[in-house]
């Protein structure tokens, strides 16, 4: 587990975001340590995905500051966040429907073979590696099928497999287990454990209480754009978290 005096991988101070008249986020502070698994919970529309997208460089925050590994950062595009080692599984998966599963997994990081001055795609290697990754997730997903034709869970497997390609320092998963079946859920939780062991920080957004309590070190609860609680997992309970999410309990 993370030591208290280490530099946080991620540090947010006073993050706020307005969409026109909607205050999606307001004064959010948080820290994530290397190797720490943080659960982010909250009601629908609480602002979780918005927070993820801000950290990933997809939106700019209206207020506040982001520090990554100690340095203030201003990502203007997702590629900037990816470059410093932030990997994301988006809630809407972000797949190109007209490409194959393997092509989606490797999008933007294609494997190539050099032929003299030109580098061409190494289709075989990508398909093989993708099959391996799907296998690790125990997902029956065919690398050469178009994503358009896939079932909801197969699509989610593709989105999760992507994060395994790079040596990320922070992996954010926005409801990665929403569409997948029982045994793949286990694999994803297992995956999170392995990431933690490798010192990678993980932020898990989920509505599934058991999952959060199974893998997280700490849980943060959001409500209507504000942070209401930030507690080590062993100091709280599913009941308390539920009360915080629904607003039955104001803060903890």
């Amino acid at each position, binding site marked *: 587990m993370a030591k208290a005096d280490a530099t946080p991988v991620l540090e947010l101070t006073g993050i706020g975001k307005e969409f026109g008249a909607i205050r999606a986020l307001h004064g959010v502070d948080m820290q994530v340590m290397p190797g720490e698994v943080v659960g982010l919970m909250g009601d629908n529309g609480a602002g979780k995905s918005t927070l993820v997208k801000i950290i990933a460089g997809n939106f700019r925050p209206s207020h506040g500051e982001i520090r990554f590994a100690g340095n203030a950062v201003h990502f203007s*595009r997702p590629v900037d966040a990816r*470059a410093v080692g932030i990997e994301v599984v988006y809630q809407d998966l972000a797949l190109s429907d007209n490409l194959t599963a393997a092509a989606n997994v490797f*999008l933007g990081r294609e494997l190539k073979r050099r032929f003299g001055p030109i580098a061409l795609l190494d289709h075989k290697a990508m398909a093989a590696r993708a099959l391996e990754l799907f296998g690790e997730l125990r*997902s029956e997903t065919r690398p050469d099928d178009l994503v358009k034709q896939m079932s909801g869970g197969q699509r989610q497997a593709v989105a999760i497999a992507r994060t395994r390609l790079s040596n990320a320092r922070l992996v954010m998963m926005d409801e990665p287990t929403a569409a997948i079946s029982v045994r793949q859920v286990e694999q994803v939780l297992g995956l999170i454990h392995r990431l933690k062991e490798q010192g990678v920080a993980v932020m898990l957004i989920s509505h599934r209480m058991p999952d959060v309590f199974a893998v997280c070190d700490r849980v943060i609860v959001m409500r209507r754009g504000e942070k209401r609680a930030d507690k080590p997992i062993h100091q709280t309970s599913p009941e308390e978290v539920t009360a915080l999410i629904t607003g039955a309990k104001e803060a903890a």
Partner: protein
Amino acid sequence: MAMPMESPISFTNVGKIRWWQRGIFASQTGYVLLALAVLLVIMHFASPYFFTEGNMQNVAKNFSFIAIATLGVTFVIITGGIDLSVGSMMCFSAMITSMVMTELSAPGSPAGALFVHMAADGKTVIANVPGLILLISILAGLGVALIAGLVNGFCIAVLGLSPFVTTLGMLSIVRGLGYVVSNGRGSFPGGPDADRFYALTSGDVLGVPVPFIYLVVLALTMAVVLHHSAFGRHVFALGGNEKAAELTGIPVVRVKIEVYVICALAAGLQGIIISGWLGSAPANMATSYELNVIAAAVIGGANLAGGIGGPLGAIVGCVLLEVIRNGLVLAQVSSYWQQTLVGVIIILAVLVDRIRSRMS
């Protein structure tokens, strides 16, 4: 901690995909090719001259004339964009090439002095390095296309303007500039390199028209780029889901600018080749060709919604349009009916593709 595999993943409910269920056989391109074959047979019976060598050469040359531009616009269409400025671009590049060629070849002019001088007999004009004038002229023509493509790309990718409006504006801008620089007159290739220029654009090699050879080379290159390079993959990804492409870290802005530049360059090259064949770059050259070019791409299977398209389809579309045009003249259909029939045949040709959807 490596995961122990319970059992290898297997796909017991997935059979073998038969050859006729994939690739070209399962694409619009394949079915339009079928329609084309039918059309060829009909034309053969409509006119005994259709399948003569002369006419085939003619068809090959004519369709190559819009096919290179169609390859270019196919890139744009795959990303989900559109480029209406191709027709004007053809004209403007051609005009600039001719004008530069003529200008550099005029012994008196300031630019000309660097390249040509009078021979002793006071008549012949000789270039310093043979072909240099030609090279510079063509580069000038492609240069203006490059600039126009960059402007299109910048407006669309960086400023976020609609491709339709931007390239419609560019259609007008470039056509207008053509009128301005030539004072409405158009221009002609001239000077000592003109013959070399004609040979490069309208000659043939062993009976095969050169534009056709350029086309084949470019189409093959395009096939490799689209399917075997990261750039090509990003082009498809952009057309499939631009938002997702952005989120997965594809340099969306760069790719977009690149496709508009490719398209403009292809159109420019196309225009230069046409002007070589015409021996002139009139100010109204290629007017409204953009619709033909886009139609050819779409008929061949490119999807204006993005994500689908390729060089074979572009070529098939162009061949189809040219065979219809040529065939109707050969069949001596009344000119008044020709236009109506062109429309009907275009619709019938894409209708064939519906057989596929119905069958599966």
